[in-house]
């Protein structure tokens, strides 16, 4: 599969400039990070643990705050204004490492909760759409079960369907396969690949090299709260420019 480079001309969906973040204990997690994501682009963020990659993508939907720099998501400037934050969260979906499904609700209720409460859409219509989404990720026959009765891979696919239920324009993935048993990784990656093929804008924090090579338009390597290298996957994996990138690739190979 070749990486279409034409997407570089799409509209800018995420524009982060010089983002810096300190934790209350004084530790600086982000040291001036820049990133631009265009519509339909798939950007994979890699890096050693503690490099700030999760923290960075969590700033895009304001799950983490930052002290310096600016982030514009889909034309909305992130600030302390609560209305802005709620508006951004309606446009940005997120898939977590630990799935974070709501264990007290059925699979179907997990998908319908937010569209009914936040978008105020009629319940019957939302349920119909939710069943279609479940079919898309291949688990429609589990709709009335509780998350605890599903396997890890199934749970993560439900979580992807749940984030899609709000019809987001951008999807963030925070290590979506790291908590999965190895035999379940592929079923989740397949769903993500399908989403990318349909043109979803995605930012993915992951260690899955094969996924990055096949699906990503760009790979970003972060270390110590900074972007070290940013390149198309072919170039990044075969001919990394920076010492830090070579070191990281030799560790995960």
């Amino acid at each position, binding site marked *: 599969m070749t990486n279409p480079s034409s997407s570089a001309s799409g509209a800018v969906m995420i524009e982060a400039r010089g983002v810096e973040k300190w934790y209350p204990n004084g530790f600086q997690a982000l040291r001036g990070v820049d990133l631009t994501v265009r519509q339909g682009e798939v950007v994979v963020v890699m890096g050693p643990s503690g490099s700030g990659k999760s923290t960075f993508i969590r700033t895009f939907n304001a799950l983490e705050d930052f002290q310096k720099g600016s982030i514009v998501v889909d034309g909305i400037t992130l600030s302390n204004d609560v209305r802005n934050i*709620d508006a951004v969260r309606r446009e*940005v*979906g997120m898939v977590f490492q630990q799935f974070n499904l*709501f264990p007290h609700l059925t699979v179907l209720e997990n998908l319908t*909760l937010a569209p009914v409460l936040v978008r105020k859409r009629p319940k019957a219509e939302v349920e119909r759409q939710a069943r279609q989404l479940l079919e898309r990720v291949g688990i429609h026959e589990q709709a009335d*079960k*509780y998350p*605890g009765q599903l396997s890890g891979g199934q749970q993560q696919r439900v979580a992807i369907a749940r984030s899609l239920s*709000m019809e987001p324009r951008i999807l963030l993935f925070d290590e979506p396969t790291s908590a999965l048993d190895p035999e379940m990784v592929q079923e989740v990656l397949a769903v993500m690949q399908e989403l990318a093929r349909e043109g979803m804008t995605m930012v993915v924090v992951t260690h899955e090299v094969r996924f990055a090579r096949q699906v990503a338009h760009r790979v970003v390597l972060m270390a110590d709260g900074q972007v070290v290298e940013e390149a198309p996957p072919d170039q990044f994996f075969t001919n990394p420019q920076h010492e830090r990138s070579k070191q990281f690739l030799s560790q995960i190979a």
Partner: protein
Amino acid sequence: MERSVTPAGWQRLRRELFASRTDGLITLVLLGALLALGGGFLRWALFQAEWAVVRVNSTLFAVGRYPLDQQWRLWLLTALLAAATGLTWGLLRGRSWPRNDQLATVLLAGLALAAPLFLQLSLAIQARWWGITALLLGLRWGAGRWGDRLPQGWRRWLPLQWPLLYLLGMVLISGGLGLMAVRPSDWGGLLLTLVQSSFAILLCFPLGVALALGRRSELPLLRWGSVLYIEFIRGAPLITLLFLGQNILGFVLPGGLAPDRVWRAAWVLTFFAAAYVAEAVRSGLAAVPRGQMEAARALGLPVPQALIHVVLPQALRVALPATVGQFITLLQDTTLLSLIGLLDLLGVARTVMANPAFLGKNAEVYLLLAVLFWCCCAALGLGSRALETRLNPNTLSAARA
């Protein structure tokens, strides 16, 4: 079938109780001690105890000095409660009669037959008890048999009967809406105990949840206010707070605004229990992973909706056993009201025991009190266990499947 079970049962008993010579000896000694104790108790209860003290004062224990000509209101309330219980019970169970339900039915029927006879009530009052029991069991049967014919909309609104019934009960007890007013100082016995504890239980729960959320809030003023309140209340014995409430509210609030002594005590109980409920709920909140809130927020839910629909349902399920434990403590703490001069169950008991006609009948009275409190607490405990099973998604889906 039974023949094959009985020898196995015997063998198990033998294995567990008479495995060795020492085991057998211990079993025999303990069995002997138990028989001696139980026999002694039965001998006292059946032949030595004089239950006249309970018979003569049964109305006093039940409702205190509630005016005789107004007691029909309490009978009406009891009948309504029985009807609501039967209806809810029947709708929950449907046509099936599990073993527990059979047991409860036999117990209720037995109680309705035996208790009035034991208390030697007049036939008119006995007939009321029989009628109320028949109403409860009849509705249980009827609602179970034909409940599924009710329209779905009706069934959904039926739980609302309980809060409505509670408000109606308050009106029936205290008067108003055309009924003659009965002053709270005339309420007593089991009636006062139940009014006080149900009022405090119903109000301390939302208050406790609010305090627990306040303690975890990011707003410093809210957080420190909640911490201060919880730690102050938990640091003071209830009895001092009750005395404080009786005295200080009269000074703080001008003239007629201060609530009646009975209601002052009810509010103190409420505020006291709320601090403990808050700690139980806090432990429940701590058990909900942070990711739940994050996932809800990432889906665009505002904080209040995320709390109501995602975090609190999970937290309260974890906190339920501790919270109900707190409710049971609260019910028992109402006995302290007798120390500030209110005639709750213990207060009535003390006046009865002070009556020269019943001198030395303390054992009978205290046994009655213990049985009454045990019944109330057992009902709370059973209710909480039933709720726990219903709230657990795994047993729920098993029931649905």
